[in-house]
């Protein structure tokens, strides 16, 4: 049978990959990184750089020897006609290989055996090992695909090697990079400072007064951080929802000619690093802020630090997240079929009555959705509270200080992270379970002629007023950001200067050619490099996941979907904490590398790629895939030749947005950066902490413009694709 030979070919391919991993690539992680090629010096005999086979040949790390058995086991059955035997042996080889690989990895660490009972059982080892390197990873990949090919040969999903492999791959990486770190964090929260498991310690840490205290109700003291976060998130969720609705109504139903310009606002949060709004708020309302000084002058008051704390965070988050609510609600408001409103009007309802009884009830689920999104964003926000928090502690910053501060209490950070995760997951769960079923989006695509009726007048005017105030405010804030970079010292000396830009981005010429003298260049190039590496990986993982979700049916698909979208609800600070807890020891020893940054971006931004992929793939007629299949193309060929080319706009969108999001991310990054791999955002935060606002603002402005040009370039490219291929049935839909 044809598919049998396809499975055999797959086994050959993965065996070669495994052999390369075992015999050629350095087995352990390389301190200077793979691409420095430092390791070529001494390869293949130096035990730090040697492949597994060379280690064993030299009598080192003998526990790696058994791995060769499962690697070569498929040779027995390759090309075998008996599918049952073929699949059974592959499944055995794959799972035994994976099991042994991880078992030895977890059992033997940098201090020999990781657990005492192992030493008792096998005798003292007197040897140690570091984290997995490329060799181990390749072997791991080979075993994984042995397993999936074996499962496919069993007839799962019509025996489709590619689809089963893709499912196995996505499940594995989600398990390793989302679930494993979270599990590590849980286990770390359950241990006391000596590493002994203790429920009492956990309960004590969990119910601490600093977290749940209600002092603010009775006396003039702060409440616990959990209440602070919750209170803030509820207000921000509600406020952004109201503002978002106002904007959505103005944009779609005011008949206001330039309302399309409002849509440009939705780009702002994407290209603005999260703490930049906070910086602008300081420039306006801080102790030496423009407005504070002006008001103090006019009213003859002592300028105060009132903005630091709840008011400041609130303003900054409302500015940051209103566009997100707007983006959600504009879809909802447009989704209400005009024919329903027209029907209502022909039934003699007035505009106000129609709005009250038809339009508003239809968009109500969308409002709840926007509220929950705002809630999650506010909970997860790290940059603004860090810059503006003052004495108002919230969970996300508290986690950070538990780790980097004098306390360095990982257990406490883990407990706080779990509380934060519980809040966001509850909101996420509510959003999916409760609202998933209640969507009233009435757009069907056909027979929905007519245009939206205008708002009733008594709704229109308040909307106009609120929207105008907000637009003026936003423009001021962004004006401040640009202007602030050119001011000598804010509040003291308002002389215009290029000083900050020169300090950050000076370029000189020396004997070796161009020389990037500015202090920001290092982090800038690192950021570009890491964001540019993460973007294609995010797009690939996102699109494959989207393909599986839209085009394939398999048991447990809902869980698969939930797992892949879950990382959306995991706040960056939680990711940061869980990653340093999970990935600082072998076998997955990644802290301090650029790889951990890339991985964190890939999984943080995966939902963006998945949603872009789902949106565009659902618009591709499924019969295109089926036509390709009945013409004898395999699913892999179909994916490559039919689906991918038609999804070019979605791929570009996923690329650009994961790139931009990687450039603006701060919350997870700040835990994961190292001296060697410093990112732009953490560099800026460092400047802010030194009260070096000039450089911080100049750098932020530069980032905003870099990302703006990335997005404009993208629009240009997508526009072009659509004119050359007019029939491309897909529409870009960046969700």
């Amino acid at each position, binding site marked *: *049978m*044809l*598919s049998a030979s396809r499975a055999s070919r797959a086994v050959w391919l993965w065996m070669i990959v495994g052999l390369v991993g075992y015999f050629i690539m350095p087995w352990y992680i390389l301190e200077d990184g793979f691409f420095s090629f430092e390791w070529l010096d001494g390869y293949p005999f130096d035990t730090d750089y040697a492949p597994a086979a060379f280690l064993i040949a030299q009598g080192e790390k003998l526990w790696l020897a058994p791995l060769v058995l499962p690697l070569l086991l498929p040779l027995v059955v390759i090309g075998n006609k008996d599918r049952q035997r073929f699949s059974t042996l592959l499944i055995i080889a794959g799972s035994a290989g994976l099991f042994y690989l991880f078992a030895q990895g977890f059992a033997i660490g940098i201090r020999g055996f990781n657990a005492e009972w192992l030493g008792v059982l096998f005798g003292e080892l007197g040897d140690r090992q570091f984290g997995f390197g490329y060799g181990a990873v390749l072997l791991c990949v080979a075993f994984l695909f042995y397993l999936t090919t074996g499962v496919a040969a069993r*007839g799962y999903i*019509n*025996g*489709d090697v590619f689809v089963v492999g893709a499912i196995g791959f996505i499940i594995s990486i989600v398990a390793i990079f989302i679930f494993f770190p979270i599990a590590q964090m849980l286990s770390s929260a359950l241990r006391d400072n000596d590493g002994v498991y203790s429920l009492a310690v956990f309960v004590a840490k969990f119910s601490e007064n600093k977290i749940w205290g209600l002092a603010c109700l009775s006396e003039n003291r702060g409440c616990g951080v959990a209440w602070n976060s919750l209170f803030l998130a509820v207000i921000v969720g509600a406020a952004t929802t109201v503002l978002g609705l106002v904007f959505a109504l103005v944009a779609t139903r005011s008949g206001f000619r330039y309302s399309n310009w409002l849509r440009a606002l939705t780009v702002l949060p994407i290209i603005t690093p999260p703490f930049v709004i906070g910086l602008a708020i300081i420039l306006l309302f801080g102790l030496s802020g423009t407005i504070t000084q002006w008001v103090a002058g006019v009213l003859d008051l002592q300028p105060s630090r009132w903005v630091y704390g709840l008011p400041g965070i609130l303003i900054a988050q409302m500015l940051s997240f209103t566009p997100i609510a707007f983006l959600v609600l504009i879809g909802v408001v447009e989704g209400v079929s005009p024919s329903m409103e027209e029907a209502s009007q022909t039934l003699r309802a007035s505009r106000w009555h129609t709005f009250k009884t038809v339009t508003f009830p239809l968009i109500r689920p969308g409002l709840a959705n926007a509220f929950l999104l705002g809630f999650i964003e506010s909970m997860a926000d790290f940059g603004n509270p860090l810059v503006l928090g003052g004495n108002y502690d919230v969970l996300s910053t508290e986690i950070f200080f538990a780790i980097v501060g004098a306390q360095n209490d990982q257990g406490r950070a883990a407990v706080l992270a779990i509380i934060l995760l519980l809040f966001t997951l509850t909101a996420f769960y509510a959003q999916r379970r409760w609202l998933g079923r209640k969507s009233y989006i009435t757009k069907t695509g056909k027979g929905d002629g007519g245009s939206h009726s205008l708002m009733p007048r008594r709704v229109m005017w308040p909307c106009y007023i609120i929207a105008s105030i907000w637009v003026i405010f936003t423009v001021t804030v962004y004006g401040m950001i640009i202007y602030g970079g050119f001011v000598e010292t804010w509040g003291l000396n308002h002389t215009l200067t290029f000083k900050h830009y020169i300090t950050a981005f000076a370029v000189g010429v020396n004997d070796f050619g161009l020389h990037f003298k500015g202090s920001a260049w290092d982090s800038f190039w690192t950021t570009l490099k890491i964001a540019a590496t993460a973007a294609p990986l995010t797009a690939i993982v996102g699109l494959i996941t989207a393909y599986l979700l839209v085009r394939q049916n398999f048991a447990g698909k809902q869980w698969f979907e939930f797992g892949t979208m879950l990382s959306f609800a995991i706040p960056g600070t939680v990711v940061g904490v869980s990653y340093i807890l999970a990935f600082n020891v072998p076998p997955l020893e990644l802290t301090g590398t650029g790889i951990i940054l890339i991985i964190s971006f890939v999984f943080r931004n995966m939902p963006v790629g998945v949603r872009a992929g789902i949106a565009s793939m659902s618009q591709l*007629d499924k*019969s*295109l895939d*089926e*036509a*390709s*299949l*009945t*013409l*004898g*193309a*395999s*699913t892999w*060929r179909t994916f490559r*030749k*039919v689906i991918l*080319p*038609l999804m070019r706009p979605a791929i570009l969108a996923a690329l650009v947005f994961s790139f931009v999001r990687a450039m603006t991310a701060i919350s997870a990054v700040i835990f994961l950066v190292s001296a060697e791999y410093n990112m732009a955002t953490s560099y800026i935060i460092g400047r802010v902490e030194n009260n070096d606002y000039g450089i911080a603002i100049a750098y932020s402005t530069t980032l905003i413009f870099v990302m703006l040009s990335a997005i404009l370039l993208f629009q240009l490219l997508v526009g072009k694709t659509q004119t050359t*291929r*007019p*029939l*491309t*049935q897909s529409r870009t839909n960046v969700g």
Partner: protein
Amino acid sequence: MSQSELKSRAASVEFRDVTKKYGTEVTAVDSVSLQVAAGELVTLLGPSGCGKTTTLRMIAGLEMATQGQILIGGADVSRLPATDRDVSMVFQSYALFPHMSVLENVSYGLRASGQKKKQCIERAEHGLDLVGLAGYGARLPSELSGGQQQRVAVARALVLEPQVLLFDEPLSNLDAKLRRQVREDIRDIQQNLALTVVYVTHDQEEALAVSDRIIVMNNATIAQIGTPRELYEQPADRFVADFIGEANIIDAQITAVDKDRATVIVGNTSLQLDARGLTPGAAKLAVRPNRIFIQTPGDDAAGLAAVVEKATYVGDRMEYKIKTELGELFCTSEATDQAIDTGKHVTVQFDAVGPVLLPRGS
């Protein structure tokens, strides 16, 4: 060019007790057995939701049978996915790849099967020639009319010389005038190349016109298999009688059966009809609307007394709804110039050969 000549490798299709279930609740196809001989054009006909498209997709391998065996050319392909079956399909939406030129579309399957590029192009061009689109290869599908796109889809499926060619409602996106033309083209190609074709439609006229045999499906099972004439003139049951061209189902009484002829009393008239194995007693009679003759009184013909309830002029004929002692009847008349007004009293006669007895219990 002899090398690129399209050959027929037509093979038979057989279903043995095939069942398709979605989840545990929905049974789309319920233990269906059928046979399609090599070189035959068989239509699956039925109302929407009857399981005809699922049946077609199971032949293609796009759906897997829950139970039973599917054989193509005598080989069991039940577990084989679409990719590995030697079957091509023409889709309702044509499913032309919008990012590929016409030639790339037609040669797609040849390329996928690993043939040399030059040979692929040669054969694809021959395929386009066959459907009358030589010289259109460089265009994008969007630059063709609906009918031309349809023919590209046919060419794309043909050039693979499949054992079985499947059509899923291929005419439903064409306008009425084009339908007849394309239908005849498909039939010509099928007969010239002696292809095995399975064709799905819900349009009974299209099915009657194009098929060697028709399989009528209803509620996930086969209602009747037969040639177009058999289905129309000897429907197996009430459903088939009514679905293939409308029919009036009338209560009748068989008074006597002599050899194969039955004497049937309907109201006050008596007919001599094919007995179809029935014995005397109560029976149902199916009568096509054009087999009922309607006359104005004064023509002094015997027959059933009736009143015209509604008369509708539809261009080439008159449609009447009349009320008789047997219930309401629907009949047509080509005498549009002598239309009968609503409320008129008329007499009704049945054609001597048209009416057909339905088996009991149907």
